[in-house]
């Protein structure tokens, strides 16, 4: 409400009892004095009211302590209330974010590295490797299938190829080789070699030298007999010690190096001379015996090797038609390092075609080292299992943390605290006497075991300040003990109430109480003794079990009451 100047003069006239003309005169004098003091830079004080002072063009008013106290007289006796722990918890719980830790973890996991990156990379690598393996397997199978018909001719692998393939598959070729390289090597093979020597290719290859070879074969048979006499013991001793495969391997390496190596050039002259002598004269046996004697004088291992060299001598004693071919092949194979030595053996048996078939040999070479790579395949399976376990555990922990699953130690206790700390407001259901008044606390009214009427009668309180009941109405039986509306229940005076007015005149306070009661509120009129102001009459509404419930109820009050109210315990 706004009091203008005229109304103020009327009130001032009524209060002071001074005539209106004088009142107008005095008020003008007062305002002039205040303005003049402000202009002069001074302050103007009215005893018991306050001080007018100026800062620049602005006028400030500082109320006196008496006026401050009188204005707040309705709050007399009000002191700061220490909230209970439960109330503090309840206020702190909404601020406490139970998911803050999780959010921090998520931020850490987001900012941190991706745990699946390595797995994905590994998986990609593995998948690539598997693809390569599959491709290689596919190609390997296809290659083996495609070369099934040629497996006898093509030998897999470089190192193991030379030994096993030569042993298993090229027996005929070895026999041929042995026959070609020297009949002295072994008499039983000489027959086979003689048969194979009769083949047209060999005939074509050796050409005119067949007769010489036959002679040399005959000679070799004779010399072989001599060898049997002298060196058979050595060979017999050597044979069980050295497996046939190793012997053949030795043959392969050293024979080839001897055949195609540099030693050939060194031995050619001597070999040719000796061969010519052995071929023309009957003293072949003597030369052979001399050579054998020299061989016998050496170590047992070297004997065998020298014997092979002697065979080489016999081989190269021929006008070897393979020299040109072998040189060409050796030139080609020297470029392919040591592996190229092995194919040369097949070249001897299979001829030129084998050189063309060297390329497919490289494919089977890739198969054997790749097949063991299938063994590390369980590694990605392990990774997938670990990944699945991590996901399962993480999901369960997450569900437990979000209280979807109750996992002790993981499920946050805050949630349980919330349920414990936040009981439903104990506000009795509203009994609206005045139907025009809208129910204010309908939502928060939960009947909580209303005490029986007998108990209410038994409750006898001796409050310091007892609210004065303005009505003689009896409390309905079905009314809750606490609430905003209804009839004042004296047994609920141990709670809190919302003070709306504090008046020094009892009649005015009583009028306000009646007005509120007519509106359906539980209106209380409580006298408060004050040494300074005498007795003050507080008009309040509602009876609440706790301060929190009163505060909740105050939020739903009428807007005209929200401007100035306070919550206070009913009985001090």
């Amino acid at each position: 409400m706004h009091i203008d100047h005229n109304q103020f003069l009327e009130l001032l006239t009524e209060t002071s009892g001074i005539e209106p003309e004088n009142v107008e005169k005095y008020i003008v004098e007062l305002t002039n004095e205040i303005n003049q003091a402000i202009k002069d830079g001074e302050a103007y004080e009215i005893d018991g009211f306050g001080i007018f002072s100026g800062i620049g063009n602005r006028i400030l008013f500082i109320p006196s302590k008496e006026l401050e106290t009188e204005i707040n007289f309705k709050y007399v006796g009000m002191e700061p209330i220490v909230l209970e722990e439960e109330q503090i918890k309840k206020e702190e719980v909404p601020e406490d974010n139970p998911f803050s830790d999780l959010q921090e973890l998520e931020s850490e996991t987001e900012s941190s590295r991706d745990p699946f990156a390595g797995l994905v990379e590994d998986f990609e690598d593995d998948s690539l490797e598997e693809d390569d393996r599959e491709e290689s397997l596919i190609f390997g199978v296809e290659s083996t299938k495609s070369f099934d018909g040629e497996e006898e001719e093509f030998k897999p692998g470089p190192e193991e190829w030379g030994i096993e393939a030569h042993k298993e598959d090229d027996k005929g070729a070895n026999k041929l080789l042995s026959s070609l390289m020297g009949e002295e090597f072994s008499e039983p093979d000489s027959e086979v070699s003689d048969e194979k020597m009769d083949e047209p290719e060999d005939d074509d290859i050796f050409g005119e030298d067949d007769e010489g070879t036959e002679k040399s074969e005959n000679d070799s048979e004779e010399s072989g007999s001599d060898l049997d006499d002298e060196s058979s013991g050595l060979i017999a001793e050597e044979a069980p010690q050295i497996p046939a495969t190793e012997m053949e391997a030795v043959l392969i390496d050293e024979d080839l190096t001897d055949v195609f190596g540099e030693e050939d050039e060194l031995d050619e002259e001597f070999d040719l001379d000796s061969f010519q002598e052995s071929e023309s004269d009957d003293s072949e046996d003597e030369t052979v015996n001399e050579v054998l004697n020299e061989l016998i004088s050496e170590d047992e291992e070297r004997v065998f090797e020298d014997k092979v060299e002697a065979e080489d001598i016999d081989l190269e004693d021929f006008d070897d038609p393979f020299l040109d071919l072998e040189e060409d092949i050796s030139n080609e194979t020297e470029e392919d390092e040591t592996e190229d030595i092995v194919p040369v053996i097949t070249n001897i048996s299979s001829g030129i075609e084998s050189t063309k078939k060297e390329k497919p040999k490289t494919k089977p070479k890739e198969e054997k080292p790749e097949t063991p790579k299938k063994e590390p395949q369980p590694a990605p399976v392990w990774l997938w299992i670990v990944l699945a376990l991590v996901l399962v555990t993480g999901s369960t922990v997450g569900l437990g943390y979000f209280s979807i699953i109750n996992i002790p130690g993981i499920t946050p206790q805050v949630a349980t605290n919330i349920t414990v700390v936040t009981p439903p407001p104990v506000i009795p259901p509203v009994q609206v006497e005045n139907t025009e008044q809208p129910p204010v606390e309908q939502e928060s009214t939960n009947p909580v075991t209303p005490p029986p009427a007998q108990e209410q009668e038994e409750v006898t309180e001796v409050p310091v300040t007892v609210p004065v009941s303005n009505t003689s109405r009896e409390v309905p039986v079905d009314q809750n003990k606490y609430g905003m509306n209804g009839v004042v229940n004296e047994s609920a005076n141990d709670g809190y109430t919302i003070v709306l007015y504090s008046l020094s005149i009892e009649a005015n306070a009583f009028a306000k109480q009646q007005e509120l009661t007519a509106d359906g509120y539980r209106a209380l009129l409580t006298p408060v003794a004050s040494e300074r102001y005498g007795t003050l009459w507080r008009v309040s509404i509602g009876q609440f079990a706790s301060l929190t419930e009163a505060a909740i109820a105050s939020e739903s009050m009428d807007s005209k009451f929200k401007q100035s109210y306070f919550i206070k315990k009913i009985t001090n």
Partner: protein
Amino acid sequence: MTKDFLKAFGIVIRDQVIMKNTIEIENLGTFKSVHYNQKQEKRADGTTVMKPPRDTIEFKAEQKG
């Protein structure tokens, strides 16, 4: 201008302020009441207290010119 006038001047303004009314005085300004609701404050010792409400009087000088 007597003491009774000054005393009545203070009483009238106080009562009207208590009644949440605004008082306008010519050539001086306007008085009005300002209410501060009760509020919670956390003390240094960790305890939380509910401070009582408070009313104050506010003066606004008349705009001259």
